[in-house]
């Protein structure tokens, strides 16, 4: 099972735990309190483990082939970005884990900056604008909107309108809002 699936499964477990065990945990005399506490602790431990594994994977891809040919290095960085975008969105959508989400977003910043230092720069992320996962397209759009707005804006608008309320729609909305409010659209439309 990959990390994304594990987080989704953990999210389901957390929902069940909140529904069934929260009252037991909060009650002084509930016979199931110890077991509920143990389950809750296990969920937190598992989440921390999954986050550590996820961030380690991004870090490995980020540093993979450091010093190798630019093409190979760029491929590795694009894979890191794709993985991080999915991980961030899953942490947010399944567990409302803002802290974990923010840590992974900082990783996508690092990937974009690493790409800026080689070859065609972060423009290499444009390949992800055709990704079948809206969460990856939205994330790539956030990093490319100033570079290729004519391509990114329609993609983000479609995600914002057509995608159900989740982190892909949220990323699209806030990226478009920022771009419009900062007046950058006036140069391209």
């Amino acid at each position: 099972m990959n990390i994304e699936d594990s987080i989704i499964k953990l999210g389901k477990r957390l929902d069940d735990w909140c529904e069934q065990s929260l009252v037991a945990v909060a009650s002084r005399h509930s016979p199931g309190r110890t077991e509920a506490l143990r389950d809750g602790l296990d969920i937190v431990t598992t989440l921390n483990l999954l986050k550590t594994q996820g961030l380690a994977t991004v870090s490995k891809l980020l540093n993979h082939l450091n010093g190798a040919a630019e093409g190979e290095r760029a491929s590795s960085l694009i894979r890191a970005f794709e993985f991080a975008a999915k991980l961030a969105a899953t942490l947010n959508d399944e567990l409302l884990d803002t802290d974990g989400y923010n840590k992974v977003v900082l990783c996508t910043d690092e990937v974009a900056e690493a790409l800026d230092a080689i070859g065609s720069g972060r423009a290499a992320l444009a390949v992800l604008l055709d990704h079948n996962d809206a969460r990856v397209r939205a994330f790539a759009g956030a990093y490319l909107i100033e570079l290729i707005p004519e391509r990114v804006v329609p993609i983000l608008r479609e995600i914002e309108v057509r995608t159900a309320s989740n982190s892909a729609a949220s990323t699209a909305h806030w990226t478009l809002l920022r771009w419009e409010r900062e007046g950058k659209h006036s140069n391209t439309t």
Partner: protein
Amino acid sequence: MAVLVDLANTIAEFRKLKIAADAAIAFVQHGPYSLEELQVVADDNYEEFSSYGEFYKDLTFAERLEKRFGRAGDGQQYHHIVTQGGVNEDKIPPELLQNTDNVIPLPTLLHEAVNAEYSELMAGTKMTKYQWLQTQPYDVQREEGLKILRELNILK
């Protein structure tokens, strides 16, 4: 002795959690709400406060609000739709932030979910939504603040 203190603190935390969970469950069962339903007074009773009021200058707004309208309730906190603190503290007149149109009571757990939403980094910016929104005019901040409440299914 330290173990007993820890245990007492843990039990106290659990009791708070229970109160907060009960408040959130009761709130969600009857939601989503219109903004008017959540405000502490009806529109025609709008009130605003100066942070520098002579009588309450040593109290926070939340404390003054409690004096005027009572506590938000067990397991509840007051939420500012246009956020207070940060850049807004100097940029926006206190009367625009500290008024009955901008401040609503929310269950603590939902208030934490709202705060978490504001704490999210905006991809590609190194800024949180809270920080970026405060660079925007009041109207944009309010519109997005209401949108966040709608997305969390708190507001209709």
